[in-house]
């Protein structure tokens, strides 16, 4: 593949074939709790996409210019999560200050995803797979959109299921996990189109 094509390939792979939620099962906690509500899923999806795209670029810089030169790669877990947490806090403050409607739609979800493992997962995958800055950004963006796609589909399905009769023991997270599994299998249909990692 030509070098200039790599970010694009990684982007689509992150959305479909290597969907962070459906193939890596990361970011499950907020997925399970928020997918009940379509509107909240939408807000959370946008927030996750935004944070993943931006933090992957920032963390790429931190990793490349701070950790690598001093051989501190083993500290990546703590350093990357620290940067994510601080960044999310900062963005929340700014959004709250500048736009009330944006805060209502997006800002209130930010504290929820500070500790979302999918966000840290994206930063770690990008390090492991040795992406450059552009690729990292597109990988973050794609992973976010993939997560967004997964939670929106789930919220849509659960909306329909509200009228269905579900065995009592399966109500709530039970049926959600089963559907997630089926969705993951459906997404396997994309595999082979693109490969990354």
């Amino acid at each position, binding site marked *: 593949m030509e070098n200039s094509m790599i970010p694009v390939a990684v982007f689509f792979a992150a959305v479909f074939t290597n969907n962070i939620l459906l193939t890596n099962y990361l970011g499950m906690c907020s997925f399970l709790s928020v997918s009940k509500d379509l509107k909240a899923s939408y*807000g959370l999806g946008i927030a996750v996409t935004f944070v993943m795209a931006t933090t992957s670029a920032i963390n790429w810089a931190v990793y490349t210019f701070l*950790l690598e030169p001093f051989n501190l790669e083993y500290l990546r877990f703590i*350093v990357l999560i*620290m*940067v994510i947490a601080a960044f999310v806090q900062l963005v929340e403050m700014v959004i709250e*200050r500048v736009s*009330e409607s944006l805060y209502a739609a997006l800002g*209130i979800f930010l504290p929820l995803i500070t500790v979302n493992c999918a966000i840290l997962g994206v930063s770690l995958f990008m390090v492991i797979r040795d992406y450059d800055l552009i690729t990292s950004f597109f990988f973050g963006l794609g992973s976010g959109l993939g997560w967004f796609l997964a939670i929106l589909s789930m919220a849509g399905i659960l909306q329909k299921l509200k009228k269905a009769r579900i065995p009592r023991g399966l109500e709530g997270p039970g049926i959600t996990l089963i559907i997630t599994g089926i969705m993951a299998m459906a997404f396997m249909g994309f595999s082979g189109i693109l490969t990354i990692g």
Partner: protein
Amino acid sequence: MVTTLLISVTIVTSLAVFLALLMVIADATIANYGEVDISINDGSRQYTVRGGKPLLKTLGEQEIFIPSACGGRGSCGLCKVQVVKGGGSILPTELPWLSEEEQQDNIRLSCQFKVKESLEIKIPEELFLVKAFETKVAQIRDLTHDIKEVTLQLVDPPEISAKAGQFIQFQVPEYELTDEEVYRAYSLSSAPSDSTKVELEIRLVPNGICTTYVHKYLKEGDTVMINGPYGDFYLRESDREAICVAGGSGMAPIKSILLDMKDKGISRKTRYFFGARSAGDLFLIDEMRELEKTLPDFTFIPALSEPQPEDDWDGDTGLITDVLDRKLENIQEAEAYLCGSPGMIDACVKVLKDKGIPDERIFYDKFA
């Protein structure tokens, strides 16, 4: 080796310091909303506060306590406040708790929205009586196998001004079952005239954070923080017959109301139906029989739903709803006061409505 160590420590520390500094600067600039004015109840009280914190917390710092059972996480929906001016629009995190009418009146969850500009708000006057109290456990005694009566002696401030039937919030410190302070609401069972102490009846709920704490850890002499009083479940002033119904620890507020009637010399006709499973779940029977003698027109009617052979029970039997159905006739003019589990209350409200008591004269306190 040492240099590597030093370098890694330096790098991580300086990064942490840098980020912390960034946060501090942001907090002082971006999140600094300066001083704002809060005007309460058409200007009857004015406060100048620093903006940036949720309204619930801001008011708490001014010693105005809005009732909240979840401690400000937006999961109980109790801390509603009417905002007349300022405060922006309602946030999605508030919506699940607000009815359409409340949204039109601009009722807000005070734990969710932050004070960023000057506000005009409305709060029920009685909330100004709400205070935080430091108390000492004076006595703990068993009422039944799973209900304990806890008497708290007020230390600071030394007196509480509550209406009979209201509740307080009990602060549970960090312990085995919780890694943060939590608050749980309990009704007062003592008479309001007894203003230097509060008495609570606490039933053990398996794995309940507060009930386990009270039943397994709390000892006489311990310090307990409470705040209150809250609630609009109290005896209304009228001459109508009062029909009280309770189950389990729902005894507490009804007992407080009865004691208050005794203190104030209220002589209205009163019947008190108390539902329990078997004789082992009955308590304070002697106190109630005593009240029957001192109150001019009071009848106590305990009923067992599953009396055991050894109980030797000759009182009423059956579910409390059946007993109400059997015993109550011509009560359209009465008032009803109910306290207990949500299931029991819903069932009893239905019976009372069928008997002709209108909604607005049925008062209840659900122990959820």
